[in-house]
C-alpha cells in the first residue's frame, strides 16, 4: 500500500530555514539602515533620495524587501494554517497572500530602480 501523504507540512524544514535566513538578512539590513540614516540624517528630499540612489543601498534595500515578502509569506501562511480550517477558504487566502506579495515585489523593484 502506498502511504503517501498529500497534505501537511512536509515542506517544513526548507521553510523553517528560509524563515531564519530571511530574518538574518532583515536584521542586518535594519542595523545598516539605522546606522546609515543616523549618520546621514537625511532631512530633505535630495538627501533622502541620495541614500537610496547609492548602488549598494539600493541593492541592499531590494534584498531586504524581498526577504520581507518571503518571510511574510511563510508567516502569514502559518497563520492561515493555524486558524482557518475549511480547505477552500484556506487555499483562497493563501493564493491571495502569495499574489499580493509577488505584486509587492514588483512594486518594490519599480520604486527602487526608478530613482
Amino acid at each position, binding site marked *: 500500500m502506498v502511504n503517501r501523504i498529500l497534505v501537511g507540512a512536509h515542506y517544513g524544514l526548507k521553510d523553517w530555514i528560509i524563515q531564519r535566513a530571511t530574518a538574518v538578512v532583515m*536584521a542586518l539590513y535594519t542595523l545598516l539602515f539605522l546606522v546609515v540614516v543616523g549618520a546621514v540624517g537625511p532631512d530633505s528630499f535630495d538627501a533622502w533620495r541620495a541614500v537610496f540612489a547609492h548602488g549598494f543601498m539600493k541593492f541592499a534595500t531590494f534584498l531586504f524587501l524581498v526577504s520581507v515578502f518571503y518571510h511574510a509569506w511563510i*508567516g502569514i501562511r502559518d497563520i492561515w494554517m493555524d486558524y482557518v480550517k475549511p480547505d477552500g477558504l484556506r487555499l483562497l487566502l493563501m493564493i491571495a497572500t502569495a499574489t499580493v506579495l509577488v505584486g509587492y515585489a514588483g512594486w518594490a523593484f519599480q520604486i527602487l530602480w*526608478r530613482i
Partner: protein
Amino acid sequence: MAEMAVKKRRPKNLDLPTIRLPLPGILSIIHRISGAALFLLLPFLLWLLQSSLTSPESFAAARAVVGHPLAKIVLLGLIWFYMHHFCAGIRYLLLDLHKGVELEAARLSSKIVFAVSIALTLIIGAKVLW
C-alpha cells in the same frame, strides 16, 4: 493502538480566558500579531517609500501624512511592532542555537526583549516623529 488511547486521554484546556500566559507566551503572541499587522500595513509602507522617493512634491505629501497626529500614533505602534518582532526574532534565533533555553534564562530574555524593544521604539519615535 496503545499510543492512540494515550493520545485521547491527554488533558486539553482551550478555555482561553482562564489561561494565564507567562511572559514568553505573551511575547510569542505579540510576535504573531505584530507580524500580521506589519504584513497588513505593507501597502501603506510601500506607498510611503514610493512617495518619499519620487519627487519633492510627493516627498512633501508623504511627510505631511507622517506628520498627522493620528498617523504618528499608528506609526509609533508600527515602530513598536517592528522592534518587538525584531528583538523577539533575535531571541528565537538564539533559542534555535540552544542559547538560553532553560526556564529562568528564557524568562529573563523575554523581559529583555520587552525592555529593549520599548526603549528603541521611544528613541526612534522621538527622533523621527517628534
